[in-house]
């Protein structure tokens, strides 16, 4: 479904991703973990085609993205839904309009009523019934995340990318969010890539892990094999040890 080969990305004269190789099978659930500033969010945005790598190839559903002109990336991006780290809710749109936004772009023939109905349905699914007419500034952090998830999933895209879906949330809300993500994944059999700093919660959700450190892959494999990884950086990070190379 998604394959990266020798992906190298430099931003503002600083190398961010080095020789990254990764293959994601359809329907699999991947977690990307690693210390801060290791390139996790940049990798997620690169998969969406928001950054263009200087070297290497990125295939999404058989289409090579890196040399694809911007207008032709549209079709590939429609196969993806993304929740951004800061939610990226549009301040100038109401909650239901935010959720319906990708749908309206994908199918301009849909009436305003049909869009509102679909958005309302999706908001009920994430536990936000009654918040349709609110503005994003009126929502709490957890509610914004849910709206972001509703927007990312409304088109039932085959690939879903969640960047920090539970950052800053309490354990109960975190658990509810992961239950919601699991439910959505099972319903639509989508391929999921999730980035999180909450390692225990993420590990319960995913079946594969990619560990990034300074833009390099330090571990790429089944979640169950992470404990056995002998890389000192992975070892220290996963166990939360004070002593080590980090």
């Amino acid at each position: 479904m998604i394959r990266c080969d020798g992906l190298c990305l430099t931003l503002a004269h600083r190398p961010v991703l080095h020789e990254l190789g990764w293959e994601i099978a359809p329907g699999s659930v991947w977690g990307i973990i690693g210390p801060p500033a290791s390139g996790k969010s940049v990798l997620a945005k690169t998969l969406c085609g928001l950054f263009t790598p200087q070297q290497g190839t990125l295939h999404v559903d058989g289409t090579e993205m890196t040399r694809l002109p911007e207008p032709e990336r549209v079709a590939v991006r429609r196969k993806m839904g993304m929740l951004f780290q800061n939610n990226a809710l549009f301040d100038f749109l109401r909650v239901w309009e935010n959720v319906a936004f990708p749908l309206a772009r994908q199918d301009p023939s849909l009436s305003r009523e049909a869009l509102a109905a679909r958005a309302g349905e999706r908001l009920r699914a994430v536990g936000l019934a009654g918040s349709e007419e609110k503005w994003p500034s009126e929502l709490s952090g957890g509610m914004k995340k849910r709206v972001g998830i509703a927007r990312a999933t409304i088109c039932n895209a085959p690939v879903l990318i969640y960047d920090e879906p539970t950052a800053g949330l309490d354990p109960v809300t975190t658990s509810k969010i992961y239950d919601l993500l699991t439910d959505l994944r099972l319903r639509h059999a989508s391929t999921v890539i999730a980035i999180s700093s909450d390692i225990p919660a993420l590990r319960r959700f995913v079946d594969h892990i990619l560990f990034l450190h300074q833009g390099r892959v330090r571990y790429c494999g089944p979640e169950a094999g992470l404990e056995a990884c002998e890389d000192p950086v992975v070892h220290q990070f996963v166990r939360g040890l004070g002593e080590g190379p980090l």
Partner: protein
Amino acid sequence: MGVVTTFANFFAAVGAPVLALCAEVGGILTLLFRVLWCLVPPRFDLDETWRNLHKMGVKSVPIIVLTAFFTGGIMVIQAAVFVKKFGATSLVGWGAGYAVFREVGPMLLGLMFSGRVGSNNTAELGTMVVTEQIDGLRALSIDPVRYLLVPRVISMIVMLFLLTILGDVVAILGAALFGTVLADVSLASFWVSFSQNLHVADVVHGLIKAAVFGFIVALTSCHFGITVKGGAVGVGRAVNNAVVAAALGIVLSDYLLTYALP
């Protein structure tokens, strides 16, 4: 060796700001081409344009009316001493109209528009960059230039043009009123002086300037907003840069247009 180092340091000190300036000018020109690309043929969001026309234009009316009314008044108050001294009451209407239409109206309202609408636009776009809303649009395959910037550029040009017409009218009314009260110039005398000495070209001259100023405010505010780096501090810096660049652009283009236009 010391001399070489001194020269190198000198050129580095001079060169860095020059390169930074070139980068900003280049960025604004690139944005200009991208906006024009979306306009021929027109490919932009009409709903967003309508929303911006309302936000930037209708909501600016009170401040524009207030500024214009007192500007017209101030011009007559300043002139009143000399009008009385030389008995030049027959020139008050012409003087006020000529100054308002050609210079004070578009210039002052342009600067006021830059402060109110341009700075707001930069802050809004900058915040959208910082909170990943622009990335969000791109991830949804929406070109931010076409969806966000082109409607704002169109709205600012149209609205500054229309607000200048409104401002001109209000400023003339203010000048007539203050002239009657403070300089003993009757409304009839003011009107005769105004209507017999002013030409359509004077009005057109100012309105062309208004449209150009609107374009300058739009391009600078959009450029500095969309290129924000560094969070809240970056947004503050961008607003500052946008207002300064717009003011410089307005003054410089005013100078050139005054020479170029009839």
